[in-house]
């Protein structure tokens, strides 16, 4: 009896990428609906049992510098209380809606004053760097703060590899702008897409990192997956999430919050207890998990590392 070989599979038999990405979206959505239904009876806008992607451990994370022995905020706190307006303006909206974000495939366009403008796949961009855990304080402009164990690598290393031209004085970042994945973009709360930026010396500072993880695991979507900036001596909104574009420029970037209200949110936005927000005091903050307010520290307690970046500058003027 003749046994026939199974026909060879051809490339055309492989499920097209676009289709399996859609399918994954569908499964994620279905899972979210199931979780949503299960939690519908629990109080609105709170509770730990919310839609979460699978938690994936990151391999080979070593301890990084600049640590603090302050008590870490819980994974739950960090992933349920977010300002990420692309997913909605309530603190729990990101956790509820961020499951729609598809973080692979993901590309980052590098352009502007750089040796070789190009589009990079995130995995190839991230691959060369050893992952470090960086435990940083995060101070929100709304006067609350957390202590967060990020996983990432210095932005400086990426910049060196990308080789910006000597004329590049600033670096500008842009967040994904896709209303299908980010329902908050349908509301013109800010001038989308979200844009942030740093002066080149701030970007090259060893405290400044690109983060891809949290608590030793892959970064949750609501915290800015797949890759975000973390600049611990500036108010939280400077640490832009879900980056799709990096542009080197000789002009100070028009950052989203400064465009929305230049008097309230400056380009620098360094944490500074002596310069109040026009509408509220920045002298103290509430560390989430604590009852009493604590004094806000200059440069969020990173003054020894970063104060020299602003030597001679009037920080009341350049707020």
């Amino acid at each position, binding site marked *: 009896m003749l046994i026939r070989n199974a026909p060879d599979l051809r490339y055309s038999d492989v499920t097209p990428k676009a289709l399996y990405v859609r399918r994954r979206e569908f499964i994620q959505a279905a899972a979210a609906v199931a979780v949503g239904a299960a939690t519908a009876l*629990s*109080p609105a*806008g*709170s*509770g730990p049992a919310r839609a979460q992607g699978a938690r994936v451990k990151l391999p080979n994370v070593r301890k990084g510098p600049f640590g603090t022995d302050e008590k870490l*905020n819980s994974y*739950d*706190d*960090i992933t*349920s*209380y977010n300002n990420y*307006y692309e997913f909605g*303006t309530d*603190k*729990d909206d990101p956790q509820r809606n961020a499951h729609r974000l598809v973080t692979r495939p993901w590309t980052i366009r590098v352009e502007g004053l750089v040796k070789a403008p190009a589009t990079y796949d995130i995995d190839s961009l991230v691959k060369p760097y050893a992952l470090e855990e960086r435990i940083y304080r995060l101070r929100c402009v*709304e006067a*609350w703060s957390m202590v967060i164990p990020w996983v990432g690598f210095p932005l400086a290393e990426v910049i060196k590899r990308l080789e910006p031209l000597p004329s590049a004085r600033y670096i500008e970042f842009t967040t994904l702008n896709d209303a299908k994945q980010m329902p908050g973009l349908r*509301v013109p*709360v*800010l001038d989308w897409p979200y844009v942030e930026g740093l002066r080149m010396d701030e970007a090259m500072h060893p405290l400044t990192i690109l983060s891809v993880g949290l608590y030793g695991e892959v970064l949750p979507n609501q915290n800015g997956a797949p890759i975000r900036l973390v600049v611990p001596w500036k108010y939280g909104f400077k640490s832009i999430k879900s980056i799709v574009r990096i542009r080197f420029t000789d002009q100070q970037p028009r950052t989203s919050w400064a465009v*929305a*209200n230049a008097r309230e949110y400056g380009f620098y936005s360094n944490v500074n207890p002596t310069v109040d927000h026009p*509408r*509220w*005091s920045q002298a*103290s903050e*509430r560390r*989430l*998990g604590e*009852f*009493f*307010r604590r004094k806000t520290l200059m440069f969020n307690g990173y003054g020894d590392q970063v104060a020299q970046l602003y030597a001679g500058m009037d920080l009341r003027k350049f707020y």
Partner: protein
Amino acid sequence: MTRFAFVRWSIVAAALAPAAALVYWTFTGDLTANPIDFITDTTGTTALTLLVCTLTVTPLRRLTAHNELVRLRRMLGLLAFFYACLHMLTWVVLDWFFDVASMTADVVQRPFITMGMTTFLLLVPLAATSTAGMIRRLGRRWQQLHRLVYVAAITAVIHFWWIVKADFRQPRLWALALCVLFGFRAWWALRARLPTRG
């Protein structure tokens, strides 16, 4: 129980639900990662909602010709005041823990706090004069005094507007609600002054 009593108690139950939920979530640990902010938001929003409900009673009564509705007005007003007190207590006890110096500085320097405090201070005499005895004693002046509720509603919406960072949808909606409610009153007041035709 009459139908009216049923409506009345249903409103009380609904109005107390947010406070009950806050107590319940305190025990289940579901007050979010920032409980003090969440309590502040919830009590403030509920106070504003009930204040606007109070202002809805009179137009609703005139439009539907259900005069008994006026009997809901004081109750709604007092419920609004109850939440305004909770909102205030949250600020004094949980947010600042009786730090009088900081609170005073806030009231003086932060316009949104000034507006909130103004709203609260406007509501105090209204709540204090809400008893039948006071209504009798004050006579005509009672109605004049209680027109302060219009000012309080406006300062409450401004208070809300000035704390919002970028998403003005909610305060805008409340401002619109006030415009509609004041619009009815203005229209009726205007019509009352015009000579009647025919």
